[in-house]
């Protein structure tokens, strides 16, 4: 392992610099920053930070990688998608906020301090709120407001857990607290329970998820991709770090199971495809939460591969949704027919991404779910496992049925730009490669 601070500082500086270079060319600068960021994130796999201000291990690395990958894809997609003059905010401001949003997520993952993690998560709300209203419709303004007030009120509640961590341990350093190995007590139970409800607002845990379908459906496609693909996992990462203090397994798993049941039922009844994908995100985040809550190497590996594959598949699903909205000018499943004949590229990306987000083999999400389900059975969580299996199957059927309706039939329309199609297709296809690559190591993870 190489010990150095420079790459970890660079990870924050790259999108930070792109944000500072506010001007006519900041769109292209953002794409260049995305490429450099992905390369830097891959290279730090073999490094550990020298400074105690950073805490990056292999778990954090997966989160950094997924944030940088989805940032690159969303910046590239936005080049064409956002047009020259978005109605809500200017193109320059859009890319400025996209970069600040990325910096705040990366900061939350890298920093070795629970208090600053909270600050980073709250900063993501500030940076991303105006991105939702880029299209300036009455619905997008309302969705923005709901996002601001519900998430801020919820994350403020999570601050109680930060105060209690300081009260209990006298420090907010993640590494110091985790190395103390204190016996669980009432205070640590309150800490993780309050964090579950507080950060759960951002992650999409029932019943504090209500902003999620609105913001996802009204934000522009590249922003929805960032929300689903990386914002919710960033909050989940912070919750996971707090959960490590005192694993309150029963509470976390039951909240996740109820959230999966709720999201499956809701997504089965959706008329709008973006809202359907938003509920699917809620379902996947809660499956990953079960993985982290079980806290075995297999379940954590399952949660990580699920989140990584989901981030790209879901980004692909939202890019495909953006293409469909440009072609068909609707968000309703029932108004879209013959996508495979009208726009085969977008049709293929939508099909691949919907299979990816529902956990079909050989996508990485499938192997992630298998590992988590295996860990649930290993822990004799039979009732929870049965419920999750039934409702995951329901989501699989509902999403793929709706997508097949959109793909089939005849329709004659002019399709969207080819670059938008390619980005959606690339994003949807990578999780297959991830799944196949993971096949090679799955045996060693389980044993």
């Amino acid at each position, binding site marked *: 392992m190489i010990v150095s601070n420079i790459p970890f500082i660079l990870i924050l500086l790259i999108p930070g610099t792109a944000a500072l270079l506010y001007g006519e060319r900041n769109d292209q600068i953002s794409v260049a920053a995305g490429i450099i960021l992905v390369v830097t994130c891959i290279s730090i796999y073999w490094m550990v930070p020298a400074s105690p201000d950073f805490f990056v291990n292999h778990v954090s690395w997966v989160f950094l990688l997924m944030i940088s990958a989805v940032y690159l894809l969303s910046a590239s997609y936005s080049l064409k998608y956002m047009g020259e003059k978005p109605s809500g905010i200017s193109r320059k401001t859009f890319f400025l906020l996209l970069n600040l949003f990325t910096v705040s997520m990366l900061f939350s993952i890298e920093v070795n301090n629970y*208090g*600053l993690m909270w600050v980073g998560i709250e900063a993501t709300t500030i940076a991303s709120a105006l991105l939702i209203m880029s299209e300036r419709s009455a619905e997008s303004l309302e969705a923005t407001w709901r996002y601001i*007030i519900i998430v801020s009120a919820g994350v403020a509640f999570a*601050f*109680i857990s930060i105060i*209690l961590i300081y009260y209990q341990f006298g420090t907010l350093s993640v590494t110091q607290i985790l190395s103390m190995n204190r016996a669980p007590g009432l205070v640590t139970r309150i800490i993780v329970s309050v964090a579950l409800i507080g950060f759960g607002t951002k992650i999409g845990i029932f019943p504090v998820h209500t902003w999620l*379908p609105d913001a996802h459906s009204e934000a522009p496609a590249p922003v929805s991709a960032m929300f689903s693909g990386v914002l919710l996992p960033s909050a989940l990462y912070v919750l996971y770090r707090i959960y490590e203090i005192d694993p309150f397994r029963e509470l976390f798993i039951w909240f996740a199971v109820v959230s999966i049941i709720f999201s499956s039922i*809701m997504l089965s009844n959706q008329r709008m495809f973006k809202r359907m994908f938003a509920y699917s995100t809620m379902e996947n985040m809660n499956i990953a939460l079960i993985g982290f809550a079980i806290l075995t190497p297999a379940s954590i590996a399952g949660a990580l591969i699920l989140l990584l594959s989901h981030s790209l598949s879901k980004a692909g699903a939202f890019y495909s949704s953006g293409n469909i909205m440009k072609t068909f000018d609707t968000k309703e499943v029932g108004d879209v027919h013959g996508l495979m004949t009208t726009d085969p590229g977008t049709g293929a990306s939508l099909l691949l991404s919907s299979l990816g987000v529902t956990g079909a083999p050989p996508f990485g999400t499938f192997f992630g779910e298998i590992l988590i389900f295996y860990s649930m059975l290993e822990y004799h969580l039979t009732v929870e496992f049965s419920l999750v299996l039934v409702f995951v199957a329901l989501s699989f059927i509902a999403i793929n049925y709706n997508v097949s309706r959109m793909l089939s039939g005849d329709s004659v329309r002019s399709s969207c730009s080819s670059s938008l199609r390619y980005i959606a297709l690339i994003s949807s296809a990578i999780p297959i490669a991830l799944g196949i690559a993971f096949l090679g190591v799955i045996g060693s993870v389980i044993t």
Partner: protein
Amino acid sequence: MIITSLVYLLSALVLITAFYVQGQRYIVSMIRGQFFQSILIASISFLLAWLERSTDLVILGILLIVLRGIIVTILLERRVPDRKHYIFEDNVNVPYLFIIDLIFIVVSVFIIYSLAFSSLVPDYSFLGSSDLLFPLLLFFQGIFLITSRKSTITQVIGYIEEENSLVLFALFLLPIPVIIEASVFLDVLALVIISVIVNKEKPVHEVMEALRG
């Protein structure tokens, strides 16, 4: 002894400002209620700074006055003359909301307090663990204000009340490092600025068909 009695008195006044805000239909009165609340919490911070000889608490008090007391109040009040919706909140049945508010906060605070917080003994304890009832009551007042009103400015004030309760909670239990507290204050300030920008065009929030389900 005198200082702890003063802290107790000021904490009670903080709660009175929360009830005052809850009982208002005029937006300016609510904003000023929030201003007094922030000043009262800053005063508690100064008193505890005197008691503990802590410069961190002095900085915290100054931050409260400058960021939350002055800047947030100016930002919110500047919106009032521009729009009719910002002067007076329509369709608000204050006596009814007041009764519901009382029931809500008494039930929720005492359930949560007795289940979780009753065993925590704050640093500056003047009533034992019951000190924490003040911030908890304020927190749920803020939540109730957000959920019971439809005007943007009122909901922002509810959120600020919630944040004020966290400052009070940290002050009583164990003040967290001032650098973290300052970052939190700046976050909240930025959020208030964004709220003001977003809601130039949407002062009132109703149910929308496209956002159902």
